[in-house]
């Protein structure tokens, strides 16, 4: 039973990611991407990462994709018109992409989980997934969290600067 559900989610994740990237209308692409993130969140639940699944939905679906949609509405960008290219070489680019894909798959399928840490399933059930992540995040990686705060602050300033238009600039 669990294999069947997992197989469904694997296949539909792959199908959805192909659908998301082949749409002509960007709004449809974003909606397929939303579906992809929901499926990925479910696969996180298979891996006992409940907190991360929720964070994935809240951050990606609730913030990032809405930002995409707002940008698309702001641009009013519909389908991209076909036009003559300076360079084409679609075969060459496809070849490079597929060879990198083959390398990635060869490497990934040979990875073995040799190392075993102390966060076993039993331990996490006792403490709770969220608490385990929180303790790790704010003790061992407390400096990284501070840097992350700065990393999130700088885009905020950058976006305000980029989006700022002077009043006399409208001519």
């Amino acid at each position: 039973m669990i294999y069947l559900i997992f197989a469904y989610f694997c296949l539909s994740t792959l199908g959805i990611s192909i659908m998301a990237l082949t749409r002509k209308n960007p709004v449809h692409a974003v909606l397929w991407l939303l579906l992809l993130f929901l499926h990925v969140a479910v696969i996180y639940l298979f891996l006992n990462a409940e907190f991360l699944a929720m964070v994935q939905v809240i951050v990606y679906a609730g913030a990032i994709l809405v930002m995409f949609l707002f940008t698309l509405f702001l641009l009013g960008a519909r389908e991209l018109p076909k036009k003559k290219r300076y360079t084409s070489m679609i075969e060459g680019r496809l070849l490079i992409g597929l060879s990198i894909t083959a390398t990635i798959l060869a490497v990934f399928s040979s990875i073995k989980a040799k190392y075993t840490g102390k966060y076993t399933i039993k331990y996490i059930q006792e403490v709770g997934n969220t608490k385990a992540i929180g303790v790790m995040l704010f003790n061992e990686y407390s400096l990284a969290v501070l840097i992350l705060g700065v990393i999130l602050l700088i885009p905020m300033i950058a976006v305000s600067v980029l989006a700022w238009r002077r009043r006399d600039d409208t001519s």
Partner: protein
Amino acid sequence: MIEFLIMLIKTTVVFGIVLTHVAYTTYAERKIIGRAQARMGPMEVGPHGLLQPIADFIKIFFKEDIIPVKAEKLLFQIAPLIVLVFTMINLTVIPFDKNFILADINVGLLFILASASISVYGIILAGWASNSKYSFLGGLRSASQVLSYEIALGLSLAGVVLMAGSLNLRDIVIAQHNTALGVYAIPQIIGFVVFVISAFAETNRAPFDLPEAETELVAGYLTEYSAFRYALFFLAEYVAMYIMAFLCALCFLGGWTIPKFVTDILPFLEKVPGIIWFAIKVYAFIFLYIWVRATLPRYRFDQLLNIGWKVLIPAGILNIIIIAIFKRFTS
């Protein structure tokens, strides 16, 4: 198999009760607003107009379902379903009583926030797919409003999570019952006020009902909808009101428990089943919704966003800092 059947019955009971409540909340709303404006409210259908909601629902479900020619047909059709499904799904993680909860998951509070952030898509898509400028503007307004107020809502709930030490709604209520005051509304008064205001904005209710401001935008993202698709949006709005009332009762008012100092003075109150206390708190919050709608005028859109970003979010952060200091020196 028998477990599955029990689960199915429980789910049906919960959804049935909530939907009945939703139907009669519309009636109560019209009656209370009527009284507030020195009118009688609905009186014609049944005694004191008691059958009015049933008549309304029968009427709206038998109307013609109109889809505009230039609309994106599929998205136009599924948008109300997205809103309704991702609002109703929240009912599964709400503990109605100590042992009555459909799915007791560890991250219940985050689940509610997550599904709230997905139901926004229904609103945006309804606005975009209708291919009409009123719908589109209404949808964008609604989306920016819901998203900005979700931050304030999350911050006010973060104080609760910090104090209770859990994201599980049942554990939050139990932790609350073990404190001296029995409710989090008093030690976290700032968080409570922030929560109530952002709950109003989050459900698009007056005085923040700008997405549906009929004087400016016809009916916002609902403009092109008719018949049962309109009814689904309507249903989703009222279920969302109930979800917010449940969340308020669970996180700030003690859920199905009453404070210990009350039961010390009046011990017979312990005999009262928990679901009744829970219902009283929820009804009080729903009454507040209706009362505010009857009393306050609507805000302007820039005022709305200013309140969200410049008042509520700093107040929410202040609340977290106070709770963190409080927690540091008491435990």
